[in-house]
């Protein structure tokens, strides 16, 4: 098949069309920074449009899927099969009254929902949608992603604090405690990737996976699981939506917000979910490459497929699992995941050292590493859980175990049946 490369009608990489348009702009004359400026504007508008349209579509998909998981119909009144439900939601959010309580801190109360979408959108600037479809290829892309996510915690706290409502403050404090714990896990997970790929650029990580024809999920199973969980915690999504737990603290940090302000929090949560899915798709699942299939199928379609598949996993977890408690979540991060991630980095460092020092060929060495890492992951997870005292009983936990798990005291029933 004749491969059409670098022509503007080659839709396998939309960057070609943009490149030809920029050359046309440059040939028209004008200042030398104009093509750069125009390319920035095109990238930003494209990312914004894609993020908002995906979010609208996924509101419907998520509610129908969760309904199906929970053996009930989802929304099916507004339009055929409820397809106009996102539109109805958007209209409701836009026209609802925005009540401002009396003694709030006005500047912070109005400012927080205005900037809460910003960290989620900025992350998309370093993610490669295709080979030439990356807004900017920062040389510290991996760390940039985490740094921008850590600003999110401060904005959420400002929203909760300025509401002058003790439930909002409680939700905000819970959020910050969770986010600090899982930020460290995120850094360690992405650091293990950087140990293998020897670069922190996102484009470099995808190129490494393409060059060695392997996905990093096979080489690093434990960091994928840890990053997936840390990502779900960062965006306050069930099973870890403790900060906005509807059955416990009214609505957490966005209790006092109505109308479009609440809508901004929901939009930020969805777009941050796409951001986490896109990061996992780029770093662990190979980005826009699919073992050579990207010569026929457009790279950005492959990337979007991976992002949506991963987001489907988030929806599945939301429909299935109950909410965790805050001390369970933080204990899991500090006492269980942190030592495992440190051991994982040690093992990864040894493996890369052996590979580079002995100058072995990648085709022999990488499958061995994958098998060793997978076995080590299973052994470490089961072993460390046993060390921490979870015996892993299969089946229903006994009543004694349940009572002592929540900190109660279990008395054996007296002989004769009286408790």
């Amino acid at each position, binding site marked *: 098949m004749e491969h059409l490369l670098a022509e503007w009608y080659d839709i396998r990489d939309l960057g070609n069309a943009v490149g030809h348009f920029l050359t046309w702009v440059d040939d028209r004359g004008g200042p030398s920074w104009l093509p750069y400026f125009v390319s920035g504007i095109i990238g930003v508008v494209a990312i914004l449009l894609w993020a908002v349209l995906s979010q609208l579509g996924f509101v419907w998909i998520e509610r129908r899927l969760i309904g199906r998981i929970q053996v009930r119909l989802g929304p099916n009144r507004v339009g055929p099969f409820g397809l106009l439900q996102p539109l109805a939601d958007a209209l409701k959010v836009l026209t609802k009254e925005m009540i401002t309580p009396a003694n709030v801190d006005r500047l*912070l109360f109005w400012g927080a929902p205005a900037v809460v979408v910003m960290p989620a959108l900025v992350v998309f600037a370093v993610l490669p949608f295709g080979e030439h479809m990356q807004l900017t290829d920062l040389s510290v892309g991996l*760390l940039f992603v985490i740094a921008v996510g*850590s600003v999110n915690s401060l904005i959420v706290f400002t929203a909760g604090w300025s509401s002058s409502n003790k439930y909002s*403050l409680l939700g905000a*404090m819970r959020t*910050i405690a969770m986010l600090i714990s899982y930020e460290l896990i995120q850094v360690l997970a992405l650091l293990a990737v950087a140990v293998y790929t020897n670069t922190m650029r996102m484009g470099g990580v995808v190129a490494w996976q393409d060059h060695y024809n392997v996905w990093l999920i096979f080489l690093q199973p434990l960091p994928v699981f840890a990053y997936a969980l840390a990502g779900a915690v960062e965006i306050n999504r069930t099973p870890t939506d403790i900060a906005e737990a509807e059955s416990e603290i009214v609505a957490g940090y966005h209790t006092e917000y109505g109308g479009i302000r609440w809508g901004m929090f929901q939009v930020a949560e969805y777009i941050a979910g796409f951001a986490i899915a896109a990061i996992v798709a780029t770093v662990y699942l190979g980005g826009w490459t699919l073992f050579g299939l990207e010569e026929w199928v457009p790279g950005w379609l492959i990337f979007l497929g991976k992002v949506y598949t991963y987001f489907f996993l988030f929806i599945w977890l939301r429909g299935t699992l109950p909410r965790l408690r805050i001390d369970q979540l933080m204990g899991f991060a500090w006492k269980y995941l942190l030592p495992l991630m440190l051991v994982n980095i040690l093992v990864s460092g040894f493996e890369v050292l052996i590979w580079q020092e002995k100058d072995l060929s990648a085709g022999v060495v990488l499958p061995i590493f994958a098998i060793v890492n997978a076995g080590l992951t299973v052994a470490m997870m089961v072993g460390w859980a046993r060390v921490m005292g979870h015996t892993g009983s299969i089946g229903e936990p006994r009543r004694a175990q349940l009572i002592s798990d929540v900190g109660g005291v279990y008395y054996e029933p007296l002989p004769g049946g009286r408790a």
Partner: protein
Amino acid sequence: MDDTGSVVAFWALAVLTVGSALGAAAVRDLVRSVVCLVATFVGVAGFFVLLSADFLAVAQVLIYAGAISVLMVFAIMLTPRAERNNAETFFRWPALAIALSLLGTIAAVALTTDWATTGQGFEETASVIGNALLSTYVLPFEIASVLLLAAMVGAILLVQED
């Protein structure tokens, strides 16, 4: 650095950073002061990008704006509501005089000295910093890790209630 983009970026970031620092010093409410401080941190991260220090910029946002400001906010939460003001003591005019005289001294020295500037930028600083940390500066690196351990243990020990 004499292209238009750098000059515009420098002056815009300078206005943001110095304005936020003045705001942190002048606003009456303590939480708004911390928010202005976070804006200052982001401005300083922008300066690091302008100075071709990409790794430092990201580390600045991650550590300062992401963690240290959260620490300050927690400390404000655990102190009484009546004392959350940013007022000055009786020492404000002498302190202003001292600060301005120090500013004048440093600015005079900076502007009149003939610095031996070369003026080239770098590409990737993370690997160079990593190599330097593990070869020339390995002793301060190890001492910094011991310092962090001591700080962690000390902070937990200080606020224990028993």
